[in-house]
């Protein structure tokens, strides 16, 4: 019974951890279903609390939110045709059509069950794949680790951005910000301007809160997103019949497989996964022509996908320390707060914690399906809470959360500064996620780079001599230059019409 697998399970089943999971799930459903409030925002709002609780309880809280936030997003998508999260966009296509036909309860029930299916599928993949990847990654030295972090950053800077130059600029500015404070290897102050508070560097918690919360607060205060349509019909028949559910297994399987695969690629994220899943499920379905007109399979596939993305995104985060999306980046931040550094060493040195993460995610999914199905009618009413009430509460939670970090308003000022920066970045097409990733990964990128060069006596070819680091660096180069060069090549060889 001293096996870490079982000790972790008993730890997760302790009252405070189950309570944290329940709180996370409830808060996640609320945040996920409120249009304008994102799962990332929910995570950063809870992050200050994780300072005061154990690492495992923090994981229960945050994974509960992660699992249920995706499900919550589908509630508003189905009921009012406004996806609570970007990952619920595809669910709105058939889910809202079903609601218009008076089948809102059925659509919500399918969404919740498919979310559970996707979540558990993603977890199984995580459980099977991550120890294998971690074992391989255990042989990596500093050059390989530098190359992996570089590739992760480049992928996130380039994928899905309007301009990958702007994505990379956002990442570079984030890395520059992280050079403030004591140098990680020599302990000499850098760019601190003789300010004591800056010697500890820019803490990523106020930075994250500022980047995610302040632009939403400003939008909310200016009344940009406060007009939310209401759903006044009665919601009935939430539990679908077993016979109908069996018909959806194929779509849920397609959604889960695509979601997990897409989630495991850093930088791709939920929205890509759900639309791919929707499209494949439509092509594979006998009733593909009914997609978009209220077809249950059109709800099941994307809902399974958006919860499976979470399991997929946890694979590179736990095994290589590379977050797959902004939510796992925040989760990575929460682990770093507790001195836990995700990566291959975590599996060999802290297997108990790794298993606790797996169990916590399973409990979060069970809690999610239980809470969601039993309280759907209540959540329909919660959707009526106006933003004019929510925004001031969020503001005060953000201020108190950053203040509580070191009992100083310096961190609150940092949060405001990052908030203003994020607002203008949003306005001028600079993505925020690369900056967030750079803030989280910056210190390890610098450490691995300098360590590699020290070990090689300053010889830069060290990165090209090892096949793995060479492959990752080449992939990073292709990721960055590919989108710039490919259109030019295509237009050169395009035949005139």
């Amino acid at each position, binding site marked *: 019974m001293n096996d870490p697998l079982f000790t972790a399970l008993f730890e997760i089943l302790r009252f405070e951890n189950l309570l944290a999971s329940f709180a996370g799930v409830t808060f996640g459903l609320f945040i996920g279903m409120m249009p304008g409030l994102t799962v990332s925002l929910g995570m950063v709002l809870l992050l*200050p*609390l994780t300072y*005061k609780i154990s690492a495992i309880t923090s994981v229960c809280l945050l994974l509960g939110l992660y699992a249920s936030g995706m499900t919550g997003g589908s509630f508003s998508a189905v009921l009012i045709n406004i996806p609570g999260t970007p990952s619920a966009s595809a669910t709105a296509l058939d889910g809202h059509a079903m609601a218009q036909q008076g089948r809102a309860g059925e659509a919500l029930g399918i969404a919740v069950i498919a979310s559970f299916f996707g979540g558990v599928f993603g977890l199984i993949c995580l459980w099977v794949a991550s120890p294998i990847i971690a074992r391989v990654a255990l042989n990596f030295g500093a050059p390989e680790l530098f190359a992996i972090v570089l590739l992760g950053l480049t992928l996130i800077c380039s994928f899905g951005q*309007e*301009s990958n*130059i*702007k994505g*990379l*600029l956002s990442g*570079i*500015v984030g*890395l*520059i910000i992280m*050079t403030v404070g004591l*140098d990680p*290897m*020599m302990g*000499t102050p*850098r*760019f601190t301007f003789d300010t004591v508070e800056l010697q500890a560097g820019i803490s990523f918690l106020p930075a994250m809160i500022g980047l995610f919360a302040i632009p939403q*607060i*400003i*939008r*909310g*205060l*200016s*009344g*940009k997103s*406060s007009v939310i349509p209401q759903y006044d019909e009665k919601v009935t028949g939430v539990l679908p019949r077993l016979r109908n559910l069996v018909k959806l297994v194929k779509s849920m399987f397609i959604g889960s497989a695509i979601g997990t695969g897409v989630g495991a690629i850093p930088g791709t994220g939920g929205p890509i996964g759900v639309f791919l899943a929707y499209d494949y499920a439509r092509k594979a379905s006998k009733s593909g022509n009914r997609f978009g007109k209220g077809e249950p399979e059109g709800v099941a596939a994307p809902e399974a996908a958006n919860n499976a993305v979470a399991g997929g995104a946890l694979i590179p985060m736990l095994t290589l320390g590379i977050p797959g999306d902004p939510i796992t980046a925040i989760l990575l931040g929460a682990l770093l707060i507790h001195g836990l550094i995700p990566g291959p060493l975590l599996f060999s040195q802290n297997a108990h914690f790794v298993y606790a993460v797996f169990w916590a995610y399973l409990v979060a999914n069970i809690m999610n399906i239980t809470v969601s199905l039993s309280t759907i009618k209540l959540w329909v009413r919660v959707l009526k809470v106006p*933003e*004019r*009430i929510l*925004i*001031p*509460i969020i*503001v*005060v*939670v953000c*201020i*108190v959360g950053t*203040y*509580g970090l070191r*009992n100083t*308003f310096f961190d*609150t*000022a940092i949060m*405001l500064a990052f908030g*203003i920066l994020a*607002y*203008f970045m949003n*306005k*001028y*097409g600079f993505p925020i996620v690369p900056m967030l990733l750079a803030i989280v990964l910056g210190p390890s990128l610098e450490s691995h*780079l*300098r360590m590699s*060069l*020290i070990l090689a*006596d*300053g010889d830069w070819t060290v990165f090209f001599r090892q096949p793995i680091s060479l492959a990752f660096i080449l992939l990073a180069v292709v990721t960055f230059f590919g989108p710039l060069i490919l*259109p030019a090549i295509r237009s050169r060889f395009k035949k005139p019409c």
Partner: protein
Amino acid sequence: MKRVNILIAFVLLVFAGYYAWLTAALPDRNLPNTMGIDFFPWVLCAALTGLSLLLLIKSLFFKTSETCMYRVEWIEIKEMLIFLVLTVAYLQALDYLGFIILTPVYIATLMIGSGSRRWKEIALISLLTTVGIYFFFDKVFQVILPGGKLL
């Protein structure tokens, strides 16, 4: 968008220059055979300069691939300025008046600012939120919130 990108590229180039100047002023404290504390900042400085130049060249000589029309809305700027002034004033006054007294006023002001005119709702939400947050952070999580000098 093209003009904005050119302007942003210039701003980033100026920032890269400033960062280079700060990096050059860093103390020269190294162990033998190690990269100095200025090594990584120089790498970032070069990357920032290169990418800013790339953005400038792309904006000057090539058609933009960006489809979104980015623009700043003045109502949001106004709201942001009001929010910042209010928040800075709130943070400054917290040490004197304390969290319990000042927070309901701050929340009520934000609610009125965002268009709410239901006075009962404003009073109820601002009081309940303050008490809830105070209890949650101060009593449950032991984050000592400013008590104020008046009390």
